[in-house]
């Protein structure tokens, strides 16, 4: 029981650290991107009309951060529900569903980013795998919630 409690606290701390990390990255993203591009020695197309490649990458990276932020907030809500022993509630199932959709959204965004950075395709596949796994977990959790409801209403 104590291990379970400690594990829940540890997960909660990790999710909070991740949230802080996402916010911190959002603040210094232009600087990080510029430094990475300079270090890797990549040559990007300058803007002739419209957005330059650097700006396009930056927009894409900020768009990637948004689902990550939403998924992390949903994860925090899920962990809080788990601590209150309300895992089999519709609220928790909704959180899992949100996280899975965010992963699928990340798949599309990382696939787009792979036009600039081909290794992003690997992250896209990983996100797709996690998203699909979470969809399975959601279905299992839905069945478990139905069973729990029936059990709760058995006198």
């Amino acid at each position, binding site marked *: 029981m104590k291990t379970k409690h400690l594990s829940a606290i540890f997960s909660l701390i990790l999710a909070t650290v991740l949230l802080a990390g996402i916010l911190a990255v959002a603040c210094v993203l232009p600087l990080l991107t510029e430094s990475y591009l300079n270090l890797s020695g990549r040559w990007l197309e300058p803007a002739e009309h419209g957005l330059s490649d650097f700006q396009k990458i930056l927009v894409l990276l900020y768009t990637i951060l948004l689902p990550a932020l939403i998924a992390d907030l949903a994860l925090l809500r899920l962990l809080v529900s788990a601590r209150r022993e309300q895992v089999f509630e519709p609220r928790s199932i909704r959180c899992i569903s949100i996280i899975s959709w965010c992963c699928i959204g990340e798949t599309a965004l990382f696939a787009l980013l792979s036009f600039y950075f081909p290794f992003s395709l690997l992250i896209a596949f990983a996100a797709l795998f996690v998203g699909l796994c979470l969809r399975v977990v959601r279905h299992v959790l839905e069945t478990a919630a139905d069973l729990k409801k*029936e059990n709760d209403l058995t006198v």
Partner: protein
Amino acid sequence: MIVINLDVMMAKRKMSLNELSEKVGITLANLSVLKNNKAKAIRFSTLDAICHALECRVEDILEYRKETEI
């Protein structure tokens, strides 16, 4: 559908929900679920304990009614 006539039998025996819950050995919340027809299932052991406490038969508590009758 199955209708629970627990309140009728309790009134006949002049027994309160608290008293019945103590005699049957189930929580007040569960007994309320049963009395208000919200239960999805009832265990034989619970039914046995209720019949024993109220000194009645199963059909005094459970009744089948056609949907149109309700």
